[in-house]
């Protein structure tokens, strides 16, 4: 069931009422308003089909590239080319991190591709159940080897391809986009800014950047519609994205990013505050459905 915002209902009600003064009509209108007000099922009244399609295209493109890059990564691992695997690792993952709202919507695939050992331990599982990128990260950086990780690599590629195939069927909605944008930033706040995502490679800033880009893409797609509803918010968000991106640019190095270990407490604090200052207005983006 579709619902309108209270504001929209009040306005709609006043439109109906201004033309007629009959008490009967008022009563009818009251009851209608009541049912709509109590409906909390969130979904949009605004037509956002174009935006939803644009986002689906973006996600499909990202996951296409993710599959291609994962293929290269897996080939390097199986060739025993440690340097090349280390080089591809952070950038290949960025395609995944950018499209996380969709990539993560397949509950079984995400842990197979992206689980950290700590995530598995939380679920009472151990290293033997561990697969995906972070397991190979452990081999590359902690053990400086690819030996014994060939099977994990094969499985990773199979999972990446399966993900790409299943995304065709993903139910992309405005809700998913709006909550997804905030979720992406929440990922940054809770694990990237703390260095808990890439505990062996310390390439957290790549994921950081990709998450922000993923959120920014959603904002860009919705920006025109948002400007119609709340131009101040749209402007504020553009400014706050710029602030985060400018800050991140300070840590660029050789076409990539410095190791998380190079960040001081002041650095992480500044990044964290910039992300939170972006996240708060970003959480208001839901006005586009009104």
């Amino acid at each position: 069931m579709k619902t309108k915002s209270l504001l929209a209902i009040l306005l709609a009600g006043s439109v109906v009422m201004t033309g007629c003064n009959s008490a009967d009509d008022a009563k009818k209108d009251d009851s209608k308003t009541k049912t709509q007000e109590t409906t909390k099922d969130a979904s949009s009244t605004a037509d956002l089909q174009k935006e939803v399609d644009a986002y689906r295209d973006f996600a499909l493109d990202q996951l296409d590239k993710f599959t291609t890059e994962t293929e290269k990564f897996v080939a390097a691992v199986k060739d025993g080319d440690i340097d090349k695997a280390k080089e591809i690792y952070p950038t290949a993952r960025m395609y995944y991190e950018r499209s996380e709202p969709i990539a993560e919507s397949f509950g079984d695939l995400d842990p197979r591709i992206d689980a950290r050992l700590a995530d598995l331990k939380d679920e009472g599982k151990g290293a033997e159940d561990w697969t995906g990128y972070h397991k190979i990260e452990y081999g590359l950086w902690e053990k400086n080897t690819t030996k014994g990780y060939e099977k994990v690599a094969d499985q990773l590629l199979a999972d990446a391809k399966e993900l790409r195939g299943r995304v065709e069927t993903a139910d992309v909605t405005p809700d998913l986009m709006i909550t997804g944008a905030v979720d992406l930033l929440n990922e940054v706040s809770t694990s990237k800014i703390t260095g808990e995502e890439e505990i062996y490679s310390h390439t957290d800033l790549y994921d950081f950047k990709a998450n922000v880009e993923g959120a920014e893409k959603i904002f860009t797609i919705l920006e025109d519609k948002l400007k119609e509803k709340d131009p101040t918010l749209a402007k504020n968000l553009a400014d706050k994205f710029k602030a985060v991106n400018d800050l991140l640019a300070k840590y660029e190095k050789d076409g990539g990013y410095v190791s998380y270990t190079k960040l001081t407490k002041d650095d992480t604090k500044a990044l964290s505050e910039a992300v939170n200052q972006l996240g708060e207005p970003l959480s208001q983006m839901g006005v586009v459905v009104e």
Partner: protein
Amino acid sequence: MTKTNDDEKLLDKKITRRQMLKVTGAGAAGIAIGASGMGGILKAFGKDFLEDDDTSATNKVNFYGKHQSGIATAVQTNIYFASLNVLVKSKKELQELFQMWTPLAVQMMNGNVIGVYKNTLIPAKDTGEAKGLDARNLSITFGVGPSLFEKKELGLSSLKPKELKDLPHFPKDQLEEVYTGGDICIQACADDPQVAFHAVRNLIRAASGKVTMKWSQAGFNSFPMKNGKKQTPRNLFAFKDGTENPTTSDEKDMNKVVWVQSGDSKPWMTGGTYLVVRRIQMHLETWDRTALSEQENTFGRHRDSGAPLGKKSEFDDMEIERKDANGNYIVPEDSHVFLAKKAKARVMRRSYSYSSGVIDSTGTYDAGLVFISFQKNPEQFIKIQNSFGRLDKMNEYITHRGSGVFACFPGIKKGSYIGEALFNTL
């Protein structure tokens, strides 16, 4: 004010649809009103939209008045004190910040939730943890620190009172940057820890992108009751804290000690006061192995009764010059109360205890006192603190770790906003 704010404010007030229709009908009969018509509708409601103290609310402290709340207000059981730095780049933005905070503070002090749910794809305006609790005597006090006036882009330097400056270094100070200073302070006190925290949390959240948190400290007090009356609370050393305070109902005394009088300071401070905050760590482990007589000699009072040494009850006159048969001072010359009295300055203490876990490097409690005092001039506090100097026996058991001084605005008149006098003189 932007359209969005107006719309939100309209929704915040639980106006009935019928009220709404009456006005829209009168103002725009037969015309379809789009979102852009809301401003006009709001104007038609006029003053009804100003937030006001709800006199029917339970456990309610008034927001509006001659002085800010949380100063002469009866001390509550809990505090959440926050020191903020501002990110705003102009005095207009700073003014808008205080204007935006004003109705939020009133709503929370009425025990109300801020805003209504209207779109479930957006987080609720109120963080919600105080829902179902009444106002719990919530008071919110706003102040501005010296560093605010030093920010060139705000253009406030000519309005800085000369007495508003960082406190001097005192002997034995071990101030840590993480507990020191700040551009703005918010002191939220309530008879409930969650209500106090909620107030600060929601003010800071609403100011996202305009302020950052520098430091904060939660604190507590417990009041023994006697004949239905709150007694002086005890600090974590078990001694009564605040015995010597002026009686808040004694306006003459309050004007002498606490409230800035016309001509005392910059005109915008008239009716305001200066807040000094010190985060004082108490070394509980060493205190607890100190003999009771030594503890009492440290304070200059009896622990249980709170009476001056050699006297019977808490409010007996201290008479620090009293000597025993051998000609020795009964209240030791190096006791806390002797030195405080000797300074011949008074302040109004409004302190809370704190307990914030364990200090990693020592394995001892990080506990102590969020010392807060109000005075018409920080010099009053400085005089007392200097009198303690190196002599104070208490030094052995405490370390000052944090510090701040803030100019607290005078009270807010209905229809006005926090700090208006500061901005009006621009």
